[in-house]
């Protein structure tokens, strides 16, 4: 004998079975929900976007904005400051790069991404020189954690931008001014020369029309006779412009060197870490200069990467593993390419990799030998498990 033989003896049993009988008769027919989950998801977080370049806008020297409209479906909303990961295929190599959306989140007819040529920019070169109106791209949905949080950030915001690091701020400034939001913004915008300033005219116009938005352009290599602020965005300069620092929230986006400099300056001014938000910036320009890099491994050293059950490839120690894999036609999932999002999480079976400080591994992922290939540099022959 088991419970099912005597279950009717449990008090209330018959009431429940008749309840079920009634519900089965009149209850909701779930077959109507077939396929509904994807429909709901696509409204907010589609897995992938298919985008078409509708317009290419010259912004400043070596800088263009690609206006991207949906090639299929429609664009999901985003928070000003977020990026998309744009997939490109160049010379047979499939790779991706993140671009902050520079357009306002108040409209989602299109996303603007603003691209500046960088030194050895494999991808930026392609986007600036090869891309034409009508070209299509695949991208991720908007992602990233560099945005305003009304619950904790307060009303007084200071944006510190360097070069093309202006792009997420442009989206935020456009939103705050267009929606008339109750926030005060001061933008420090560092550029090498006055010609490098992106969105200069629009920023100036917005600051004239909106008393809650002001800005300071700071030129590091000024031409002769330049009248404005020059040098770096230093503690002295910020103090001079802002006066009082209390209650302000600082946001940094720009090149590596600017982070190192400005973070020190802000710390010197007594700004607590929780009041500073920093946008990630991809792999370091020169990994051998990172703290903890094994000194005996030179910049041109190579090692082998064995993929369990697959091929073995030879790679440079100073290139992120993900890039080396892509170069060899092995595309693994990627999103942030900065060691944060863990989408590329991969198990290291043998050997050693160097992961710079700031790679955001879960404690137990570290314990069980997982790495983030977008910011992992093989420093011995290794074997990985691609799952």
């Amino acid at each position: 004998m088991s419970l099912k033989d005597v279950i009717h003896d449990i008090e209330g049993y018959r009431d429940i079975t008749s309840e079920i009988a009634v519900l089965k008769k009149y209850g909701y027919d779930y077959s109507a929900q077939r396929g509904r989950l994807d429909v709901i998801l696509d409204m907010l977080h589609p897995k992938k976007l298919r985008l078409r370049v509708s317009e290419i806008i010259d912004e400043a020297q070596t800088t263009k904005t690609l206006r991207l409209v949906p090639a299929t479906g429609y664009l999901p909303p985003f928070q000003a400051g977020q990026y998309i990961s744009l997939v490109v295929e160049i010379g047979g190599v499939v790779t991706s790069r993140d671009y902050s959306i520079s357009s306002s989140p108040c409209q989602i007819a299109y996303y603007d991404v603003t691209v500046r040529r960088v030194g050895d920019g494999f991808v930026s070169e392609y986007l600036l020189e090869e891309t034409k109106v009508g070209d299509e791209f695949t991208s991720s949905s908007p992602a990233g954690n560099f945005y305003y949080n009304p619950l904790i950030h307060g009303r007084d915001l200071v944006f510190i931008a360097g070069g093309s690091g202006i792009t997420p701020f442009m989206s935020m400034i456009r939103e705050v001014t267009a929606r008339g939001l109750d926030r005060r913004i001061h933008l420090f915008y560092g550029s090498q020369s006055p010609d490098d300033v992106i969105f200069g005219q629009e920023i100036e116009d917005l600051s004239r029309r909106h008393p809650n938005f002001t800005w300071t352009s700071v030129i590091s290599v000024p031409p002769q006779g330049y009248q404005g602020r020059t040098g770096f965005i230093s503690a002295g300069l910020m103090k001079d412009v802002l006066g009082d620092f209390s209650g302000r929230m600082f946001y940094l986006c720009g090149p590596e060197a600017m982070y190192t400099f400005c973070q020190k300056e802000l710390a010197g001014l007594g700004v607590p870490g929780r009041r500073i938000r920093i946008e990630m910036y991809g792999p370091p320009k020169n990994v051998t200069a990172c703290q903890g890099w094994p000194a005996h491994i030179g910049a041109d050293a190579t090692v082998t990467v064995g993929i369990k059950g697959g091929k073995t490839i030879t790679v440079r120690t100073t290139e992120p593993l993900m890039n080396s894999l892509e170069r060899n036609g092995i595309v693994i999932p990627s999103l942030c390419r900065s060691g944060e999002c863990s989408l590329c999480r991969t198990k290291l079976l043998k050997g050693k990799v160097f992961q710079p400080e700031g790679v955001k591994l879960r404690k137990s992922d570290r314990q069980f030998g997982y790495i983030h290939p977008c910011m992992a540099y093989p420093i011995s022959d290794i074997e990985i498990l691609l799952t």
Partner: protein
Amino acid sequence: MPEYDVVVIGAGNGGLTGALTLAKAGRKVLLLERHNVPGGCATSFVRGRFEFEVALHQLSGMGSAERPGPLRAILNDLGVMDKLEFVEMENLYRVVWPDTFDITLRAERNAIVETLQDRFPKEKDNIPRFFDLVYGFSMEMVQGLFFKDPNISKEKYPLFFKYAFTPTRKVLDEYFSDPLLKAVLSIYWSYAGVPPTWLSFGDFAIMLFAYIEFKPYHLKGGSQALSNALLDEFINNGGEVRFNCGAKKITTSGGRVTGVVTEYGDMVQTGYVLSNASMLQTYLDLMDPDQVPKETLDAFRSTSIGPSAFSIYMGFDCEPEELGIQETTNFITTTTDMDQTFARWKTMEQQGVALLTCYDVSDPDFSPPGTCQAAFVSLQYGDPWHLVPPHQYYDAKYRYAEGMMELAERVFPGIRGRVEEMEIATPMTHLRYLGHLGGAIYGHDQYTKDTQYFMANRSPVQGLYFAGAWAMQGGFQPTLTSGRSSAKGILKSMAKK
């Protein structure tokens, strides 16, 4: 075409224990997971200096090494205990009603009785009587049901037969008159997602009993450590796993499972599928209408999609004491009316009950030195979020979170001033990551009619098995257990052939 003995769809708690059980039994198993990391709800994410625990608040059923609970026994069998370090919580919970009432219960029967008698002197005699009932009932349930007594009868187990299906509220009303005491005693109802008015006393009593007897636990590295340990052992036992790769279709022939098609269109041959995807979604989206008998879908008519959650994850730049947080588990309430609280879960109104869990109180290593983290959660259904237009989603999310923070600040004034990292998850977030309609975190609603006693968990499709919240009930212990049981069912079926 690759061939496997079993394909497990989803690496949530049930999928993981199921896959591991099968791999350990020497079966060739493929585990498919849409996400990039194992665990489902049992996961974590990193922001800044913090690794946030997503879902685990208090692990039930562990017990100590000397007095192991059922879950510890399972994890022992699965061979993952030596990879994990569990942390026992001393206290059951604190219930605090801002400016009104505040009580903390230790995870110990006599201490609870004394504390409650002290605070509710008018109910002095009723309190121990109530605990006699909870314990008496639970002992009968363990002996009669869990140990499958072949001579189970109404006469032998009178408490079980009287109370198993009785609404918890009816029992509370029978024993007590003070609404506050009833609210304090039954606050775990929110772990089940059904208010005392409808929660069966069977579900409630065994939960309270288990937490007191086996103590609430957490573990170093959070629930992700458990998921990672289970997966690691699965790989060590020859299991194959594919991340970022969901299942698209289950193929059948003549009412029998024949294979699985992945989201990339790869065909995999198998005679058995253990689906850790939602049971409803498995039938609706992984199978075509002609593969599923009409009665099977009709059976869902008596069920309803359960609650999701609204969660705020916070990393603070100070220790818990500085924030006034002294307990790991803090239920904040502003009412004793749990029916009304439950009704609000279906709206965008501010919640009446929420839970703030600060893991660092029991485990100071949980967050980096000099910091701590808290998960602040209220259950909420997905429905009201479907009415929010996409372009207003973020505003709605922050507005709702603002209400939650105001509630938190009534108990812990000034905490938001120390937040260094914050992430907010709405029911839509849970819907996205879990792939469940309504963002349901516990499967369907667990009314008495939906409990194990009334559910046909055998699929009419031969070779199709289920694990996870939708197959049994929500929560860590039940889902971990369900994967193990279903895997055993598969092994038994294989042995018959």
